[in-house]
Structures are given as C-alpha cells and as structure tokens.
C-alpha cells in the first residue's frame, strides 16, 4: 500500500475530526477519546452531510445535518438507518498518521 503522511495525532482534538483534501473529495480523520484513529469519507450516506463536523462518541459519529449515526470502524449507519460510507486504511506510527491512497487511486482508475 501507498501510505501517505497526513500529519500527527495531536493535530486532531480528542473526540473530534479533521479533514484531508484529496482528488476524491474530503476524507475525515477521527480521533476517539482513547486515541484510536479512523478515516472515512466525509460524506454521510444519507444526504451527504460533512461527518467530520459531527459529534464523536465511542467509535461512532453523529452527522450534523440529520443525526444519522455512522460507525467509524465499518462506515455503516447504526440503528434503524441503512447506508454505508467508505472507510480508508489508517496507520499510526507513534505520533505520525498515514492513510493508504491506493484505495483512492484504484477507485480513480
């Protein structure tokens, strides 16, 4: 895989998210309360809301537009809602964070 450095863990607030701009659109990088890091498309399967702007709780995020709850681990909508968003592989090396761009590249191809 082609791991691309995107910054360090401390760039993201705990229970928060930051965005990475890519040719495929925005990817949201989440940091949970216990410092796990997840990356998903910043695009709610419901109406495209920016998930990076939602409230992070446990390993899920609640979309700011209509309160869908999306699992950061699977990208799937939790509860009664149905839908999924793409997850992106993340690697944490100490403080430094990487995402795998092949996923993007192969999809673009």
């Amino acid at each position, binding site marked *: 895989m082609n791991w691309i450095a995107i910054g360090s863990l401390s760039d993201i607030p705990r229970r928060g998210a930051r965005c990475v701009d890519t040719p495929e659109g925005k990817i949201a990088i989440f940091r949970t309360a216990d410092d796990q890091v997840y990356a998903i498309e910043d695009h709610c399967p419901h109406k*495209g809301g920016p998930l990076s702007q939602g409230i992070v709780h*446990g390993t899920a995020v609640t979309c700011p537009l209509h309160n869908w709850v999306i699992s950061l681990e699977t990208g799937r909508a939790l509860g009664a809602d149905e839908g999924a968003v793409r997850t992106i592989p993340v690697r944490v090396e100490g403080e430094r964070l990487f995402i795998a761009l092949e996923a993007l590249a192969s999809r673009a191809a």
Partner: protein
Amino acid sequence: MTEKLVIIGNGMAPGRMLEHLLEKASDRYEVTIFNAEPRVNYDRIMLSPVLSGEKDYEEIIIHGDGWYIKHGITLYKGHKIIAIDRAGKTVTSDHGVTEPYDKLVIATGSVPFIIPVPGHNLPGVLTYRDLDDVRAMMLAAQSRAKAVVIGGGLLGLEAAAGLNAQGMDVTVLHVMPTLMERQLDPAAGYLLQRAVEQRGIKVITKANTQAITGNGKVEQVELADGTVIPATLVVMAVGIRPNAALAKEAGIAANRGIVVDAGMRSNDPDIYALGECAEVNGMVYGLVAPLYEMARVAASQLAGDETAAFVHSDTPTKLKVTGIELFSLGDFADGDDRQEIVLRDASAGVYKRLVLKDDRIIGTVLYGETADGAWFNDLKKKQTDISPMRDTLIFGQSYQGGAPLDPMAAVAALPDDAEICGCNGVCKSKITGAITAKGLTSLDDVRAHTKASASCGSCTGLVEKLMVLTLGDTYNPAAVQPMCGCTTLGHDEVRRLIKAKHLKTIPAVMQELEWATSCGCAKCRPALNYYLVCDWPDDYADDYQSRFINERVHANIQKDGTYSVVPRMWGGVTNAAELRAIADVVDKFEIPMVKVTGGQRIDMLGIRKEDLPAVWADLGQAGFVSGHAYAKGLRTVKTCVGSDWCRFGTQDSTGLGIRIEKFMWGSWTPAKVKMAVSGCPRNCAEATCKDVGVICVDSGYEIHFAGAAGLDIKGTEVLGLVRTEDEALEHIVALTQMYREQGRYLERIYKWAKRIGIPEIKRQIMDDDAKRKAYFDRFVFSQKFAQVDPWSERVSGKDKHEFRPMATVGFAQAAE
C-alpha cells in the same frame, strides 16, 4: 385486722406505690407518711417548667390533701424521721412523733452532691432538688443578675434554661468536654451546646471550679485556669447520691444506697426501701421509670405477691427544655463489635444515631427529632432483630410497612399529612387526591396540578411512588423519558444530581451517574455541556467537542456543508457604515445569498468554512460581533421604533430592546431564546409570540413570556406589569435565569412553563423579591464568563484547526 404501714418520704416513688397498693389491697394497711418537706406529693420532674415559669406549683401536684383524706392516710408534713427502732418497730420524727409499724417503707430519696470547694456554703449557693430550691432560685432571679450553674448534665441544663427564662444572665460550667456526656455522644453534645448557647446561655466546658468567693455572700466563681465569673447565684447541679443515712444508723445494710432484693426488701424483712435511696443488684436509679417499676414491685410485695420482682431496664433520658428535642437511651460507646447507623440533617439540626450489636439496638441518641424514641426503645427492650429493616430503620416507624424492605411500602405507610414536596409544601394526600380527582396519569400532569416535585425535583422519586400506589399498573415510572440511551435518568434528575453531587465535568457526571456508554452520545453530551456551563459558570471548562457544529464554529451549517453568518444588529438597528461593511464582505468572499431575517438582521449564506475567520475579521473591523444565530442562547431582541418616531409609541421600545440585548447577549440557554419589545399594544414587533416579549403601555411595561411561532403556535402568557425600564430588565433576566436553571436541554420556554406552571413562575418572579433578585444575581455572575465575542476569539487564532484542512494529498498521484 389491719396492719400498720409507715412510709418515710413522700416523693413520687412511694406515691405511686400507694396508688398500686390501694388498688390491690385497699383495706390491708393503715398508712402513715412522714414527709420532711412541708407539702403533699408533687411531680418533681416538672420542677424545671416551674422554674422557667411555664407552670405553677399547683399544676404539678400529684396527690392533693383531699386524696390523703379520702384514703384515710395520715400525712405528717414537715416531719423528718430521725430514728428507726427496729427492735420496737417504731419511727420517731424530729417533732417528737413516734409511730409504730408492722411494715416500714424507706423512701428518703437522694441528696444533691455538693462540691466541697471553698465557699460552697456561702449564702447564694443553692442546689436543685425540691420546690424550696426552685423558689429560692426564682427569688434570686428577680434581681436579673448573673447566675452560674455548675454541672452541664440534665438537671444543670434545665436549671440554666429556667434561670435564663427568668431573665438571668446564666453561665454553665461543665467539667467534661461536652454536655451531658453520660447520655449523649459528642456529636449530639455539640448540637445541644449550640442550641443552649443560641438561647443566650454561656457554656464553658472543661471548667474546673476551684472556689466560690464573696464577702458574706456569693460574688464570683473562680476556675482552676484563673477565669473569674461574677455571680450572685450559684446552683450546684453536679449529681445526686442516695440518702441512706437514716437506714445506716438503724443498722440496715447499705452500700451506695439501701441494699434491697428484687422484691424491694432490705435485710430486715419488715423494712422495704424504694426510689433513689434504694440499691438493687448494685444499681441505683435516678430516673422516674425504674423508680415507678420499684413502686409497682413494692406494692405487690406488700399486697402479698412475693413473686413480684424488679428487672433492670435502661431508661431513655429526655431533656425538659422547651424547644430542645433530645432523647438518649442505653449504651452508645463505640466498639469493635458494634455498628452504627447515623443520620444527620445539618440544616434542620437533626442528628440520629443507633448503636447496634448483633443486629439489635443497644443504644440510641436522637437530637432535634425524637418522635421515634419510643419505638427504638421498644425494639431495644424486645431485643428485636432489626436486620430485615436495617436500610430504613433510622427513618423511624412510619417508614416501616408490612414488608420493610420494600421502599413502596415505606411510601404507602406515610401519613396523609406527610410533606412530600418541601419546595412547594405539598403533602401526600394532596397528591393522591389530585391524581384520583383529576385523573392524572403522568408526572408532568401531577406537577402541573399540584406543583409537587416541580421546583428542585428532589422528591420526584417519592411522587412517582405515590403515582404507582394510586394508579397501580397504569402508571409506569419508567415512562420518565431518559435523557438518551446512555442513561436511565431523565433530564431533571441529571440536573438535580449535577448540583447535589457537585459534578463539574462531563466525565464526572458519567462516572457518578453510571452512564452506560464510555463517552455518551450526540444527545446527552450537548445537554450535559449546557447543564455544566449553566450550573458552574466559573468552574466549568466548556467542552467544544460536546457542542453541535454550529456552536463549535459559531455559524450555521447549511445543507451543502457551507455556513451562514449573521452579525448582531442591536435591536434591529443598523447604519450606513455597517451596511457598507456587509456589502464589502459579500463582494470580497463572493457570498451567493444575502437575506433579511425574521429577527431584524442580515444573513449571509453559502460561506465556505475555511473563509469564516476572514469574514469575521472584516465584519469585526466594522464593529460587528456574533449574532449567535446558531446558538441555544439569546438570539435577537426585535423592536419597533417606539416613542422616538411612532405617533402611537408609549415608551422607548427600541432603547429597551437594545438594552436587553446588550445585557443578555452571549448567555447560553436550554434552547434558543427570541425576544421582542413593542412600543404599544398594536404590537408591531410581534412580541406576543416570542419566548419573552414586552408590550409597552402608558403605565409601564407588560412582560410576556412562553409564546411560540414555530412547530407550535401559541400566544404569550402575561408575567406581569412593571413600572420602570429597570424593573422590566430585572424581571426578564430573572425569568430567563429561572428557565436556564430548570429547563431541559432543547426545551423551549413555552414547554418549560407548561411543565412548571405559569402561576408558579409568576410567584417566583413577580411576588418573591428575594428569589427574583437571586436569579438576577446568578445571571449577572454567569455573564462575566459568557460575554466574550466568539468571532474575535477565532479571528485571533482560537480553534484554528476547525477552519483548515489537516492536509491536502493525492493530487500528484491522481494526475499521473
């Protein structure tokens, strides 16, 4: 043929004995009594109320002269027996009367203990034992001078309270560190001392009296540590000892007291002793209950029942000082084999302690509230195993139902007049009555109709239990809506516990209230963040990660992920410079949409998130601050042009609107708050559908609240009319603060008001000046921390990470 019964002493014990004896064998004896006191039998326990002036001597007489005549009893008043001739079976009085006996009862009582310090026999030194002492004290009290009571036990404190009631300046000296240490543990002793001191009686503990001095009469008391206390009256109340001197002289066996067997018989089979002078099984007694028991036994023996026997039992002690409730029983020392249950209510001055051993009560101290003393005494006497009701034992008998472990039974057992809601003074029957009469089925209904649990909410659990008891299965307490899936608690309960447990962070709330999730959810976190911001404005650090995106970035997110920005226009008033700055910002950032809002200001829509700080910077240059159009907080104060321009305007509605907005901006509230001020009842500012509205009239300002013009449409309620602008501001601020403190997150004012009840809100804001002022002050305090313009903070670099991407990657690869 009748036997001759002679009784030496005419106190309460022989008096009671005679009553029993007359019942059992009224004709058996010819009775003669010798009383050293020149009077009939009176209730010595009631001497304290006589001293304090609450009762007269006549009211405390047990047996009047007529009683003795009726029963053919010869009473020698003022005759002290000076000799017993056991061989000749006669007694002789100091007046020379000699009386033969077949049976003799000695009831000489006790003598007060006098500390043999220098000066103890000076005139002005008294004891506290009989009516003569009381009369002497009352005489001394007429001088309104200073009195010292030596002894901080039961008797000493009663004497002190009595002298104090008679107008004397009283000091109590007690040699031990706490008062009544034989009956009370130190905690109760402390409460007692405080109560005694609150009556104006001085208390000196660890006071070692060294001398009483004076020239021919008492003038002062000197302590070992050098303290000198001026006094014209000294009362010694340090204890009593059995009066066994006469018996000893007659050769009757005596230790501390006259030694008797369980049948009250001395070593002379024709001589009995009872009362404080008697010693049974090595014990002597000073409280009335065991003395009466002795009287019962002696009477039975004299009537021929030789099986009657005295059994020791602990006797509760009660202090007879009006207004001080105190009860003490048994053994209450600490010990490894003992456990204790303690209940303290500091504000009510209540202290209760039960000492248990092997699941049985062995000691009880009750202070402040003693109603259950008798019950605890009963449990102790019967050696009842208390383990099944241990959890509720300390609350007393009324909390013990048929199934003591069931808290429902405890509520069912409450009397109808038991107060359930302290804030609103609602008793049990009022709640159950309203449920039945009005067919109430929800907690909100009960609150609306009875006000029970509608204020602080701490009695919610009790009210719900009453609903279950009254409605049966039709009421399901779980119907109390939990805040979210993370907890079973409702908003009100959480708010109450945050205050009660002093929870000041979100993790603390979740830990203490046993949240089911590790860090909550998008429902509870913003609510908790608001509650903490509201309740601890100075201590709590706002958790931005628990705020909705709008409040986190201080703009309104739109469906495409862009934001809208609304600067504050105070009272809806603007000018050319402001409009020009807005126009420039719109051009510079190519803002696609500009719109006038319903709240009399200008909304710029479609701004990219990363442009927000720059937009704010430009707006800030023109003097704009955030309009909080995104906030659960104060939004706008809409106004009309008022008396400055309008030919109908009665007051300066524009000015008042601006003043309110400048006072209240930045405050967070459970849900958004929109206000308006109209200059006359034509109501051009549409104030009567706002959260809070003002209609100006000639005579002042009519304050409205609880309107709605959104999901629901509802005209406002009138809070009241006030005369001045200052008053209008104070009332509006207080109302808002009340809502801030009681509202559930996302609950608009009109819903909150429906839940609490309009009359209750009026009562607190319009009628209760102190409450209104307190609400106002809390709002003002909170504003010190809230009135910071969030836009300029972010222009200065706060939360930069929010407005920039973390990285831009991948474009090179994609281009390949």
